[in-house]
């Protein structure tokens, strides 16, 4: 599920990089806030634990094994924000050191696995983790975290023009569904085994010692609606990719297609600044301007978030 560079189209990876940078900055702040400094070693070591966990194989059938992915497990033991930071560090190390996932695609992979994957994994636990359906909530968290990451990755590829026939898509979905179920089962089994060693390892979602204010607890509706909207839209993109003709006809009839095309092509239209008609210099300049633009956007939005977070800290 680590998308390599090359397969995503420029609007997709650039948009997700720009979305991921301030989100990660904000979440890093949040994970760090109001807690002793032992967090960085803890998150780092548990990140290395997730790497090491890939070596322990879980037998799941004759000759087949699975391994822990870890997003949901980390969110139950560290809290969602810290789990997101740890997963982000894991993805960055994987992209840089192991070439597992692209560097330009890093933002995409972070959104899929560290942000949405962790949030989706934590949501059922936040809702039912304190009650009698705790096991079920942990299972659902494992399933949802893998499933949402996989659906997002598929739809991003589809949006980048990787056409998937119905058969391929069905196979991929079936595989992802099975691995999602396995992740749920493995997460529950590991958490229960951990709790036999350290009874309080998994945080009680509503307890006061919990790192973040359990916002979901007060109103789970926005989070659930957000997640549902996200998943529905990814399914929409996937359906659109299998039946491009039907969607196109619909789009042309309603006039949306033209508008979308304009939106997608306006910024630095195809990396070709229109005011520079000469091909050679124009392309180079447009490309470099594109990089600068992406970078500036990341830094500016990141700074804005940072400042707000700092100010809020002081006022408390």
């Amino acid at each position, binding site marked *: 599920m680590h998308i390599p*560079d*090359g397969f995503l189209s420029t609007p997709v990876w650039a948009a997700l990089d720009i979305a991921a940078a301030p989100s990660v900055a904000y979440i890093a702040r949040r994970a760090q806030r109001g807690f002793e400094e032992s967090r960085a070693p803890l998150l780092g070591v548990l990140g290395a634990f997730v790497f090491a966990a890939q070596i322990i194989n879980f037998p799941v*059938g004759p000759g087949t094994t699975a391994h822990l992915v870890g997003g949901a497990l980390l969110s139950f*033991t560290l809290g969602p924000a810290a789990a997101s930071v740890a997963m982000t*560090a894991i993805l960055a190390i994987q992209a840089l*050191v192991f070439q597992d996932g692209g560097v330009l695609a890093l933002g995409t992979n972070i959104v899929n696995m560290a942000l949405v994957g962790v949030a989706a994994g934590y949501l059922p636990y936040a809702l039912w983790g304190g009650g009698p359906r705790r096991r079920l909530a942990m299972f659902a968290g494992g399933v949802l975290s893998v499933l949402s990451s996989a659906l997002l990755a598929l739809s991003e590829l589809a949006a980048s023009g990787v056409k998937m*026939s119905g058969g391929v898509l069905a196979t991929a979905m079936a595989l992802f569904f099975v691995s999602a179920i396995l992740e749920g089962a493995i997460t529950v089994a590991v958490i229960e085994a951990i709790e036999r060693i350290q009874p309080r390892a998994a945080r009680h979602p509503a307890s006061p010692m919990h790192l973040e204010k359990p916002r979901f607890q007060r109103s789970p509706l926005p989070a659930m609606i957000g997640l549902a909207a996200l998943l529905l839209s990814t399914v929409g993109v996937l359906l659109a990719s299998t039946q491009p003709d039907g969607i196109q006809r619909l789009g042309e009839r309603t006039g949306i297609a033209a508008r979308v095309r304009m939106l997608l092509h306006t910024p630095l239209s195809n990396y070709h600044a229109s005011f520079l008609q000469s091909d050679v210099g124009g392309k180079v300049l447009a490309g470099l301007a594109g990089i600068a633009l992406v970078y500036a956007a990341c830094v500016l939005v990141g700074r804005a978030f940072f400042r707000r977070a700092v100010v809020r800290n002081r006022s408390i």
Partner: protein
Amino acid sequence: MQRAVPRSLASLDSWSRGSSALHRFDPRAKLIALLALLVAVATANRSIPRFALAVLLFLVAGFLWARLPVAGALARAAVILPFVAVLAAVLWIGGQGERAWALAAKSYLSALAALLAMATTPLPRLLGGFEKLGAPRFLLEVAQFLYRYLFLLPEEAQRMRQAAAARSMRPGIREGFRAAAGALAVLFARSYARAGAIHHAMLARGFNGRFPEMQTAHFRKADAVFAVVASAVPWGLRLL
């Protein structure tokens, strides 16, 4: 990934501690050049085979300049190929055969470029470069710790697996599943305890809550020249 994690890591780590001119450039200059090359590769859409070959030669020249084993590097970057092959096959089935080749080539070259940047910059310095470019410090500290214990914890997991095999454990699926969960739980508990011990050791050595600057490097004129030239080359190659 499996068995080879610590060994391949160690080789990359020793590569990154070379002393060529490429090693000595500021990490920021290398990151800028890397991003420029990646964007050039990602957005290329005409005459891909020629462009890909040119970029490949450019990167090989980089590895030679850094006095690193070219064959080893080419093989190392090939670890992404199995996954890329799956994606390429999907494109192929969808009737986009030519595009499949182009995208696979782009993926491989991007991985090779990232590898060159990594193999000439020790990770702590690279993270220092990220910090100067504005990445959140806390995240980089976590990544630092993660990298450090990446040498240790997988080895521990490996030992646990070997120990289980040495006890000639041939469990059924149900018991095997539970045994694996137990092993992971032990590994988790040990990791957790280790993090606490690390923190105490840091405090004992006078850690005051802030890490010292990761690296006090100056962005020299040579770094700027390198960044500009190395960024311009792939874009120039695109126009060939």
